[in-house]
């Protein structure tokens, strides 16, 4: 890997993630609009929102940690995007692996938690407490899924997993139950209904976002684009064979994201303990059955 390639990866991987993520946000909002018998936002709406938020003239901060929290949240995801291999750009991603990646995905949560904590608003703190509890809930099935996939492909490297699938069969064909468990975990990870406890506007006034203005909010919007992208591409790499080019990868990623979104707008949110109960019951059971076949 030469320096040019390295530079290209460092710059373009997050950029691609951002652009694709914005399209996913748009798709999410369009799906919502369609289900609600509406037209929905124009094509560039996610971009307008983010530019508008960064272009705010004034914004408040509750202290340095509030700023650092947002930097950590966005920065953690930028790092995660670089570790997430996409066609043609997998030089740096080879240095990490799926365990490292899943730990990277916790850094933004921690960063956001710190930033929100400094805001000194109990609504935000409750939101974070719920978000961390939800993380506890969805990470158990997620980690089982990752374990199963890594065991099945005999590799913890996503590149290795994709290669295996390209040579043999897609993971979803060989491990359908695990793939379904993965979808459950994905729904929890994206924090959409019925697992939307930590935003809960009617209870805690959007929880973590309660004191976020201007570029802080913009940071969270950017984070959302990364989150959707990561979820889509990661799942596609684990179970849908990744892709040899963006033309084959991105449709899969969009499909993966579209599925939970279509479900989300048809359900209310569960209470926190029900989230844990649900996520520790069905997906874990499915994943364990699947593991019994794999091991």
């Amino acid at each position, binding site marked *: 890997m030469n320096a040019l390639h390295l530079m290209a990866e460092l710059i373009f991987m997050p950029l691609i993630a951002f652009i694709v993520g914005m399209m996913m946000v748009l798709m999410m*909002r369009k799906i919502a*609009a369609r289900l*609600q*018998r*509406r*037209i*929905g*936002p*124009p094509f*560039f*709406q996610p*971009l*307008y*929102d983010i*530019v*508008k938020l960064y*272009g*705010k*003239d*004034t*914004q*408040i901060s509750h*202290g*340095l940690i509030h700023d650092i929290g947002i930097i950590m949240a966005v920065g953690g995801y930028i790092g995660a995007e670089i570790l997430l291999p996409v066609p043609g750009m997998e030089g740096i991603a080879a240095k990490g692996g799926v365990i490292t990646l899943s730990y990277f995905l916790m850094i933004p949560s921690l960063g956001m938690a710190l930033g929100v904590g400094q805001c000194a608003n109990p609504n935000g703190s409750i939101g974070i407490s719920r978000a961390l509890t939800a993380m506890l809930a969805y990470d158990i099935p997620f980690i089982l899924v990752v374990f199963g996939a890594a065991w099945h492909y005999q590799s913890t490297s996503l590149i290795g997993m994709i290669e295996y699938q390209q040579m043999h069969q897609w993971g979803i064909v060989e491990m359908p139950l695990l793939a379904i468990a993965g979808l459950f975990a994905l729904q929890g990870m994206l924090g959409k209904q019925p697992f939307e406890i930590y935003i809960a*506007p009617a209870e805690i*006034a*959007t929880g973590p*976002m*309660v*004191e*976020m*203005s*201007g570029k802080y*909010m913009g940071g969270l919007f950017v984070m959302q684009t990364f989150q959707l992208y990561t979820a889509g591409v990661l799942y596609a790499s684990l179970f849908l064979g990744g892709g040899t080019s963006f033309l084959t990868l991105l449709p899969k990623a969009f499909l993966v994201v579209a599925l939970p979104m279509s479900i989300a707008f048809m359900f209310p949110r569960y209470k926190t303990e029900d989230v844990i109960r649900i996520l520790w019951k069905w997906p874990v059971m499915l994943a364990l059955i699947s593991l019994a076949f794999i091991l």
Partner: protein
Amino acid sequence: MKKELKIIQKERTNPLAHVFDDFISFCQSKSLFMLHYCTGCGAIELPPAMTSRFDMERLGIQPMVTPRQADILLITGYVSIKTLKRVILTYEQMQSPKYVIGICSCTVNGGMYWQSYATAKKLNEYMPVDVYIAGCMPRPEAVMEGLQRLKDNIRNDKKEHKGSAWKDYFNRYDYYLGNQQALFGDDWQTPTDIIAEAKLYDLETEETYGKHTKLLEKHQTPLLPQEMRIK
């Protein structure tokens, strides 16, 4: 308003700066978050405007929950004095550029509650109002029309300075504070520090200060942000 707005225009030498500014104001006009705060009966026409039939989201307008996140403060109808205090706090907590839309006749001059002891009459005495939408209550179409007008104003802000009413609050803070003090009493204080904000963002003029701000400085309990200190 009796006075023309004084807009502080800095010299921008970089030709791209204008392009950049135009792009931002274009995005600002395309993306408006409105605050979910139903101050009065006009709020009943917002759900139709937001939901399936009229679908505000296609104009880039969506509701937001806290004042920090929002751009538009919709004053939907009469404001009782108790509400007005909260509205002012909410307005001060919003982040600029911020826009106020007075919906319903009651915000213009008290409307049909002109003789009520409990409602404030003219909203623009207490905060700068960008657009008034008269009617009792205005139909969703009228609300949309008003928002469209606001969007045009923001879009043309750089040329005609229509969408900068929010600067007036900083520029002529003394005037607004005076009206607030007249209604709420002389020892009125919000936890937000408008004067410091005006200083920080270069929005102060000589009319920012006056006898009302002096009065405020005299009686207020200063609420300075806690800064990190190592020793």
